[in-house]
């Protein structure tokens, strides 16, 4: 379990600096140091189990359906990286405490840095590929925040964006690769994947998997040609660069390659891709490092070059090469972190990183010079520093390799050239900064405080010590890591500075001499380089981003011109295309069930509906005519329900039709009376085409479905209705019992719609025509006598009918919805006949309250079943003997239905009466106008 806390310490600890606030820098630095030191301590608790030959693991199930577990492991490889991350991280925190300017938001900086550390630690400890990927992306985000930390600088913003785009594009490819691996192996657990190397290599999708995984790893580890983001990432504060270049971010890529070597390695595809890309990166980085003027620029290109070296070694794939790669990961992390720290110090003390403005600092800054010279020597691969060991191993591994066949000698030569170049740029850096003539106009400088120097000096000392005592300091760790990668094939490392005269040594000597010449002749070489146009990948990238932005803008403007009609047309065409594609795959339109015969009534009904629909569409500019045509269709729909055995639907449709017509009539009053101007014929034709196509597809779809047998769950409802729901009207039983929760949702929507209209009508400025479009005033007789009388007579009758329909609803067609609508219509008639004020006085009901109480009743019925230990909305029923009426079956669902009834009445009247009120209260009468 301590493994989990090892990971959580920096992740959760990233909040610590924020909580500590900005009291003072020393205090904050100490707070930020707690998480990594704690994590190191916890790590050491897990260590004995690993050293005893075990594999410490933590496994917590997280999202098993996705194959994602919170699974961690600590093997040798994880240990190597974890020590680098936490150790270097701690030193960098100490360093950053001195580096950051007094006024900078340092708490935020430390929080990001700890998050970055935690994410990287997550990558190396993950025992699940999906989890690894999650942390992988988290490092991308954290580095984005850190690179862009000085967000006021345009370079920082651009650099951050570029690194995010490149590495997270790679991250997406990696995700695809991981998912493919998961499909092939059947598990995403690291143990399973590493054991399934045979299966993966034999799979037909192996090349695709390798391509995707390598794309992800190369983008992260800045391999050519995806390297270009790394030099721009140096816009970050220097402590970030030190961390990013040594233990985190770019090392994630090579970590992944090493991690997956047992699963994906050992094929010529893997070996050649890695070694060729690695070789190209090695040379490219070394060459351009020679011509950089910026101190951090040299270091950035040198990082690219060294990452290429590690990739090349992993590609060579021999046991020795892999061990050498791991050793170099360690070595590079140490000297590169030290070098970035010294670059930061120089920048901090002199205010510049430009080699042409620096020089002769050895006298003024002796300690900085010592630190830098030691680390530079390690970078150049000079004895007795650690870089020398890995360089010798690289040369030996290249010489041994059979991978390139007849080209082996050429490759060795190229590797030697890279070694030469690295000596060259290292010399140039060291000499350029510390020796030669300084600029006289520069003010005198001096070494920074001891504690700012200490982390760098410690690292430089480590470089030297590892060089001197490799078997004690480096070999055990590297052997452990190598065992995690190649198991029993791990070679017995024999690390020493002096192996006697050998070919690698000879090449080294030549490389050092050549590097000396290259450093001396650098100006001449630079002139040759200047003959070629330098293509900065950044401009290509920026141009690409601008092009993409323009393209998406163009597309957006094409699709989104602000016209809702355009959107609707596009939406419909897409739907038609999708449905059409589906239809095209059906063999025949007419299915196996065949068709039923026609009769006269049906044809008549259909003709009526088509007449109404087409008429309504044709007369759309004359709204009243259009509305009347619509009502023809609505009533015919009700008749259709009658014909095809749906009495409940017919009743509902009929009553809704009445209510809707009243509503739309009322609406006409508030909308313009004049027909709108005629739009272009082209437009009409376009709309006819779109609508016609949709109609055709819908008709075909409906016909195809109607003539086919479909699976139905009707039997369940028909069988269970009486025994389970206590009612014979299956439709009603479904509504109030089986699917009661749906109905509950629906009356909620209904009530909400009512309340929303209430709000919409509030404080509305009204168009108040006093007459029609010809200037004729509205009728003087607002409330015709006959209607008033009839409405009054009808009211009790209608209420009685609705009560009857409500009560019988459980067994016969009817129920809460229909009864509610009938009641609503009856009450509406009173408002129509007598006006709002008259009715209001006699019927002082608050309709929102009615609707809400209906909802409350339905909820209470549902909750009541909890009291009896049943799930929400469980119903029960029993038989009761009532005087006069006889035996009555009462189900608890009846109460729920009463809730439905009240909600329907309340919501309907809320909408209509409120709208009606607006017309009657404010309507200017003729008397007023005269």
């Amino acid at each position, binding site marked *: 379990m301590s493994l989990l806390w090892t990971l959580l310490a920096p992740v959760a600890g990233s909040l610590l600096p924020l909580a500590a606030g900005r009291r003072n820098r020393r205090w904050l630095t100490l707070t930020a140091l707690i998480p990594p030191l704690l994590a190191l301590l916890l790590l050491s608790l897990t260590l004995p189990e690993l050293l005893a030959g075990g594999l410490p693991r933590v496994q917590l199930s997280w999202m098993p359906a996705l194959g994602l577990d919170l699974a961690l492991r600590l093997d040798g490889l994880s240990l190597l990286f974890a020590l680098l991350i936490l150790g270097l991280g701690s030193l960098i925190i100490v360093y950053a405490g001195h580096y950051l300017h007094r006024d900078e938001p340092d708490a935020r900086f430390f929080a990001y840095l700890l998050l970055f550390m935690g994410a990287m630690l997550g990558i190396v400890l993950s025992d699940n590929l999906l989890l690894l990927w999650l942390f992988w992306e988290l490092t991308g985000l954290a580095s984005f925040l850190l690179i862009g930390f000085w967000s006021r600088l345009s370079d920082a913003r651009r650099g951050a964006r570029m690194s995010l785009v490149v590495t997270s594009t790679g991250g997406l490819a990696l995700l695809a690769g991981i998912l493919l691996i998961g499909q092939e192996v059947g598990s995403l657990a690291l143990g399973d994947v590493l054991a399934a190397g045979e299966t993966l290599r034999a799979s037909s999708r192996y090349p695709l998997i390798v391509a995707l995984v390598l794309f992800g790893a190369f983008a992260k580890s800045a391999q050519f040609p995806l390297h270009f983001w790394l030099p721009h990432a140096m816009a970050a504060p220097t402590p970030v660069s030190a961390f990013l270049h040594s233990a985190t971010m770019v090392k994630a890529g090579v970590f992944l390659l090493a991690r997956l070597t047992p699963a994906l390695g050992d094929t010529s595809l893997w070996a050649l891709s890695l070694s060729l890309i690695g070789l190209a990166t090695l040379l490219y980085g070394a060459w351009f490092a020679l011509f950089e003027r910026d101190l951090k620029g040299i270091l950035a290109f040198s990082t690219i070059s060294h990452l290429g070296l590690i990739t090349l070694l992993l590609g060579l794939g021999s046991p020795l090469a892999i061990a050498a790669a791991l050793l170099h990961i360690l070595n590079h992390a140490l000297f590169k972190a030290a070098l970035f720290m010294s670059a930061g110090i120089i920048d901090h003390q002199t205010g510049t990183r430009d080699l042409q403005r620096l020089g002769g600092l050895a006298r003024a800054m002796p300690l900085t010079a010592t630190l830098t010279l030691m680390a530079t020597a390690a970078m150049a691969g000079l004895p007795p520093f650690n870089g020398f060991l890995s360089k010798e191993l690289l040369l030996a591994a290249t010489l041994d390799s059979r991978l390139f066949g007849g080209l082996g000698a050429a490759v060795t030569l190229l590797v030697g050239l890279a070694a030469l170049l690295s000596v060259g740029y290292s010399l140039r850096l060291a000499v350029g900064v510390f020796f030669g003539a300084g600029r006289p106009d520069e003010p005198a400088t001096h070494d920074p405080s001891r504690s700012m120097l200490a982390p760098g000096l410690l690292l430089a000392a480590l470089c030297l010590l590892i060089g001197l005592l490799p078997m004690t300091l480096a070999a055990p760790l590297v052997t452990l890591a190598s065992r995690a990668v190649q198991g029993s094939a791990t070679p017995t490392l024999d690390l020493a500075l002096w192996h006697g005269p050998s070919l690698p040594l000879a090449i080294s000597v030549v490389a050092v001499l050549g590097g000396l010449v290259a450093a001396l002749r650098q100006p001449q070489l630079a002139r040759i380089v200047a003959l070629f146009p330098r293509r900065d990948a950044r401009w290509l990238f920026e141009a690409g981003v601008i092009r993409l932005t323009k393209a998406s803008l163009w597309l957006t403007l094409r699709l989104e011109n602000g016209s809702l009609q355009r959107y609707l047309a596009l939406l419909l065409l897409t739907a038609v295309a999708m449905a059409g594609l589906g239809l095209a795959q059906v063999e025949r339109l007419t299915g196996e069930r065949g068709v039923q*015969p026609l009769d006269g009534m049906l044809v008549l009904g259909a003709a009526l509906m*088509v007449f109404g629909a087409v008429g309504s569409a044709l007369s759309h500019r004359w709204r009243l005519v259009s509305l009347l045509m619509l009502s023809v269709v609505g009533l015919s729909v009700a008749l259709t329900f009658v014909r095809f055995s749906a009495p409940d639907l017919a009743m509902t449709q009929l009553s809704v039709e009445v209510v809707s017509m009243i509503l739309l009539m009322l*609406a006409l009053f508030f909308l313009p009376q004049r027909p709108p101007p005629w739009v272009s014929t082209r437009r009409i034709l376009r709309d006819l085409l779109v609508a016609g196509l949709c109609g055709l597809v819908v008709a075909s779809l409906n016909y195809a479905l109607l003539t086919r047998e479909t699976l139905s769950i009707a039997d369940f409802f028909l069988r269970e209705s009486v025994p389970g729901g206590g009612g014979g009207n299956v439709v009603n039983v479904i509504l109030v019992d089986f699917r009661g929760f749906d109905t509950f949702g629906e009356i909620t929507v209904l009530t909400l719609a009512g309340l929303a209209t209430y709000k919409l009508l509030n404080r509305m400025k009204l168009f108040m025509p006093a007459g029609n479009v010809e200037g004729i005033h509205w009728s003087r007789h607002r409330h015709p006598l006959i209607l008033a009388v009839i409405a009054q007579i009808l009211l009790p009758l209608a209420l009685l009918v609705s009560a009857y329909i409500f009560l019988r609803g459980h*067994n016969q067609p009817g129920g809460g919805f229909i009864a509610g609508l009938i009641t609503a219509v009856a009450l509406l008639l009173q408002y129509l006949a007598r006006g709002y004020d008259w009715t209001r006085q006699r019927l002082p009901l608050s309709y929102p309250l009615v609707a809400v109480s209906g909802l409350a009743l339905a909820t209470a019925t549902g909750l009541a079943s909890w009291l009896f230990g049943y799930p929400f909305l469980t119903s029960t029923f029993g038989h009761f003997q009532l005087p006069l009426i006889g035996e009555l079956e009462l189900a608890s669902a009846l109460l729920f239905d009463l809730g439905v009834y009240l909600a329907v009445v309340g919501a309907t009247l809320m909408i209509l009466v409120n709208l009606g009120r607006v017309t009657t209260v404010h309507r200017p009468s003729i008397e007023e106008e005269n």
Partner: protein
Amino acid sequence: MEALFAGVVGTLTACGLFLMLRGRTFPVIVGLTLLSYAVNLFLFSMGGLNTHAAPVIGESLSPSDPLPQALVLTAIVIGFAMTAFVVILAIRARSELGNDHVDGKQGDEEPPR
């Protein structure tokens, strides 16, 4: 009969969509209502087109599928709520913008005082 039914549903859909593509609010509302008729009929027909087969226990020997009917019943009521909301939204939009164009284009009518 199936062809006739499907044809009617298709016609209702086409007319409804044509109206919904108009630029003024009222035809759009009428179109929406027409379209919901079509959708309700479509859904309803998924239970099969049976005569004398109301899904009431004891009424008929082979009752038709009650589930589409229950779904359509609530769909009708919800459809009404939706229409009501859109109608009042249209009224409000006219009052705020001074016209009844769906895109809220300014200016073919005097705003109210």
